[in-house]
């Protein structure tokens, strides 16, 4: 019976058998098993034979199979059940013998792991955004690159007509949609009136993106310009249920009747596009005729490629697509199109030099580093305590070596112990995460849950456990197993200087990481504070605004008059954007004498009379719009940046071209921030929008009278505009909202810095306790000879403080470099000052002193009689 060449038993099982079966019976076993395999193969077939062979092989492995030959010597092996039992017994006895150290180890590691797990959950959540779309690999977003006079600028907003054109001119593009800026709009059914987050998209939208439709079909959802697709929440608010909503009429902005054509499931946090209802892009164009013009930019544009399309080719094809339109007509610069995979857009949303360059991904990376740092700090604790306390285990190592343990076995034993502790810590860590997750969720405003049922989660935990165990156990295992039995057993163990060096190096490293985190925390905190309190060039306190909508549009003059009569209102005006954020752009500004290649994007804003007074803007030159000058309708006010860009010496009175019309500069405003501080101030051009007030009403109110003023404002709006609920916003609050992610990051950095220093101190505490214990006799003798308590505390603390100071010196440049890079994400940044480092150093040293002093004072206060009497 010869087994066929390819019909042998499973190789791994044969290998197991040859490697791990009982050495005394190995030879005949392997032979027997081969014969049995042939027998099984014949009687049962290959799969069953393989199964039986593997099963038998596993059951014949040493720890499972019965130990034979109790008498007689067999080969030594460290996996016999008796030895394994012994390892566990010794490990548990050691854990219980020194409860403080075990607690420090387990708790420190658990905290480190919990931190890492939490950060991993956060990263997982961040990465999951927009990953749920079935077509996600085919979805892209367009952005534009504008080249002018050797410079290039990236713009994410695109012409509204681009979506249709893309589909026509690039055959690989299957579907496209514009997607505007989500804004709150008023809807009503009967006497139910609500504001909803509204957007507009093409009929392809629901076919491209995987938003779940409860009613209606992806094809029919946005077919007609009278259609509206609404969320479950909106359907329930207006009609009671999604089923009842289908086909019903809903009034939009109190002027258009829309028909509900689809109901989609509420949009979760895992989508970067957020909206309560969608209408067709055609409907948008009906209301906003200018969106038909290539020269204007407004919506984002998304598209879906065919499955077999090559993205690189598509990108090459669309590069010069805009050349044949009139977008760059008569203008000396070129606009090119570029694309970015849609699911990358959430994490990589910053544009720098017309390339997508980071964004939230930087925080994801930052926190990945923090997670690794903290875990490392916890591992170092373990390594340090284990080696420092190795004198306790040295005798054990000596005896084991004398009776024949080999170095690898001892290393295995200590690794195993580290893994055991890591396992205890991992259990504690999972528990901690489960307890702290709600708090973490409210801090990061996410809805994360522990994915208990996901194998990958347990994989991560197992990986974490293995990495921590191996990392933490490696040095102690290496160190302890290297001890020389003769020297250990002859007398007291003396550490050679190298192990002390390693230990001190580790403490320095640990505190270095902590110092970096503290410096980081201080700088992030200061930057966020700086941004929030920076002088914006206008007074953002007590500045209320609300949208001009519904009837207010026509009744603006009455509104303004009535509002001005409220005692708490100082000034009333209006603008075509909101005071906190204005991201509009226009290309059409040219001026005589300007460089024909030096095209600049201006931010246009239509403002009402008294706008500068309401905002508390300073006029640098010229004058504000005034009713006394009827020619002001063709006048504009620019900001200082615009003057600088245009290079005008005497700006007031100069004529510039805006598209094909000529406008005259009547005034210059001092620069103010109309966008977040992530971006530099752009050239601004303000025109008189008195004829068609739209956008927001801006009102300066008196400090201290806010509630009654707001109530009065609401009364007036209700009367003038009964169909629309009154909503308002405070500029300072809206402004702060733009820095939400920085605030969260600042807070998180604070917590993690605290944790890092806490875990480091746990380790320091353990080391100090150990040193104090080792030097008990020395302290006793010193006290008998007249040393003071302060002297002894100083003696014990000095060594550790040296390490902390050294850590500080080494870590500061690193921290400086890292934070410098972080700050570059802001157009307006704080300077990194010396005191930030000094503060971090002082914090680290103080906390270290506090930690050590516990132990050193205890040791110094001890009665010398007790420490010396045993000899």
């Amino acid at each position, binding site marked *: 019976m010869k087994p066929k060449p390819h019909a042998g038993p499973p190789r791994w099982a044969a290998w197991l058998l040859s490697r791990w079966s009982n050495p005394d019976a190995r*030879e005949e076993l392997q032979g*027997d098993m081969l*014969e*049995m395999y042939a027998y099984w193969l014949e009687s049962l077939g290959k799969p069953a034979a393989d199964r039986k062979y593997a099963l*038998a092989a596993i*059951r014949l492995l040493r720890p499972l*199979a019965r130990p*034979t030959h109790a008498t007689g010597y067999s080969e030594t092996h460290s996996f016999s059940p008796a030895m394994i039992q012994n390892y566990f017994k010794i490990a548990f006895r050691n854990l219980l013998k020194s409860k403080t150290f075990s607690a420090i180890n387990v708790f420190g590691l658990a905290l480190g792991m919990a931190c890492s797990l939490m950060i991993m959950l956060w990263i997982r959540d961040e990465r999951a955004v927009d990953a749920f779309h079935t077509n996600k690999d085919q979805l892209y977003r367009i952005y534009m690159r504008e080249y002018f006079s050797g410079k290039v600028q990236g713009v994410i907003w695109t012409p509204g007509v681009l979506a249709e054109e893309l589909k026509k001119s690039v055959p690989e593009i299957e579907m496209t949609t514009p997607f505007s800026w989500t804004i709150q709009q008023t809807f009503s059914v009967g006497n139910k009136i609500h504001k909803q987050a509204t957007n507009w998209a093409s009929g392809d939208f629901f076919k491209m993106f995987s938003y779940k439709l409860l009613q209606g079909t992806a094809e029919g959802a946005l077919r007609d310009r009278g259609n509206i697709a609404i969320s479950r929440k909106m359907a329930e608010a207006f009609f009671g249920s999604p089923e009842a909503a289908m086909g019903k009429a809903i009034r939009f902005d109190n002027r258009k009747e829309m028909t509900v054509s689809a109901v989609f499931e509420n949009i979760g946090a895992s989508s970067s596009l957020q909206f309560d209802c969608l209408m067709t892009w055609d409907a948008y164009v009906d209301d906003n005729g200018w969106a038909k013009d290539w020269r204007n930019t407004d919506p984002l544009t998304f598209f879906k490629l065919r499955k077999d399309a090559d993205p690189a080719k598509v990108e090459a094809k669309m590069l010069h697509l805009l050349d044949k339109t009139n977008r760059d007509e008569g203008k000396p610069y070129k606009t090119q199109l570029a694309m970015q995979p849609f699911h990358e857009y959430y994490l990589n949303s910053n544009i720098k030099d017309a390339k997508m360059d980071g964004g939230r991904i930087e925080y994801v990376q930052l926190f990945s580093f923090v997670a690794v740092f903290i875990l490392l700090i916890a591992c170092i604790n373990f390594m340090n305590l284990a080696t420092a306390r190795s004198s306790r285990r040295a005798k054990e190592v000596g005896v084991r070596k004398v009776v024949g343990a080999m170095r690898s076995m001892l290393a295995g034993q200590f690794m195993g112990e580290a893994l055991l502790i890591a396992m205890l810590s991992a259990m504690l860590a999972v528990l901690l995460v489960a307890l702290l997750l709600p708090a973490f969720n409210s801090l990061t405003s996410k809805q994360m849950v522990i994915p208990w049922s996901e194998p990958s989660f347990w994989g991560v935990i197992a990986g974490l456990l293995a990495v921590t165990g191996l990392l933490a156990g490696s040095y102690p295992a290496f160190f302890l197993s290297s001890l020389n039995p003769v020297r250990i057993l002859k007398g007291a163990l003396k550490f050679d200087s190298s192990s002390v060096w390693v230990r001190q190096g580790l403490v320095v490293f640990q505190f270095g990481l902590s110092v970096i985190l503290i410096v980081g925390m201080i700088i992030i905190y200061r930057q966020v504070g700086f941004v929030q309190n920076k002088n914006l060039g206008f007074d953002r306190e007590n500045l209320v605004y609300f949208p001009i909508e519904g009837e207010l549009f026509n009744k603006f003059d009455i509104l303004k008059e009535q509002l001005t009569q409220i005692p708490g209102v100082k000034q009333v005006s209006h603008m075509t954007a909101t005071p906190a954020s204005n991201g509009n752009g226009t290309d059409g500004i040219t001026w005589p004498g300007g460089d024909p290649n030096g095209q600049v994007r201006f931010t246009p804003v239509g403002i009402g009379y008294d706008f500068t007074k309401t905002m508390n803007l300073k006029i640098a030159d010229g004058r504000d719009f005034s009713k006394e000058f009827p020619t002001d309708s063709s006048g504009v006010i620019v900001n200082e940046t615009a003057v600088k860009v245009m290079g005008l010496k005497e700006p007031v009175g100069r004529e510039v071209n805006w598209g094909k019309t000529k406008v005259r500069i009547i005034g210059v405003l001092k620069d103010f921030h109309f966008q977040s501080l992530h971006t530099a101030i752009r050239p601004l051009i303000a025109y008189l929008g008195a004829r068609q007030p739209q956008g927001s009403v801006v009102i300066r109110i008196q400090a201290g009278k806010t509630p009654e003023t707001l109530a009065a404002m609401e009364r007036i709006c209700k009367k003038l505009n009964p169909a629309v609920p009154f909503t308002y916003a405070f500029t300072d609050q809206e402004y702060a909202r733009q820095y939400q992610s920085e605030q969260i990051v600042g807070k998180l950095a604070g917590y993690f810095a605290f944790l890092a220093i806490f875990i480091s101190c746990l380790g320091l505490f353990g080391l100090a306790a150990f040193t104090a214990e080792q030097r008990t006799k020395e302290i006793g003798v010193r006290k008998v000879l007249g040393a003071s308590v302060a002297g002894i505390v100083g003696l014990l603390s000095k060594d550790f403080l040296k390490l902390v100071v050294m850590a500080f010196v080494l870590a500061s440049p690193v921290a400086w470099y890292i934070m410098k890079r972080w700050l570059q994400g802001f157009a307006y940044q704080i300077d990194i000052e010396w005191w930030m480092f000094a503060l971090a150093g002082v914090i680290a040293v103080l906390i270290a002193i506090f930690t050590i002093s516990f132990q050193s004072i205890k040791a110094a206060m001890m009665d010398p009689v007790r420490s010396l009497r045993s000899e």
Partner: protein
Amino acid sequence: MKRTFLGELEEVVLLTVAVLAEEAYAVTVAQELDQKTGRAVGFSTVHTTLQRLEEKGYLSSEMGGATAERGGRRKRFFRVTAFGRKALREAKEARETLWNAMSPQTLQLMSN
């Protein structure tokens, strides 16, 4: 003398070794058990039982010559020792004593 005690599986394995006489090693025992008694005994079980029986002194073993079909590995042949034969005999006698102690009616029932 230590009281001899054979477990049921041990007894069957020991008997099989006796049946196979000169040809008894783990593979033949396992196959014989499989074919004659039809009970599903794993190979590893047979192997450990043989080892246990040897430890208890019921079996003795020696390594045979190398054979080519097993990759040149030798076989370990088992032989029932005198002590093993005694144990088998005692087990058989113990059963017979019990059978003989049955009343005729019960015996009648058994044969149906």
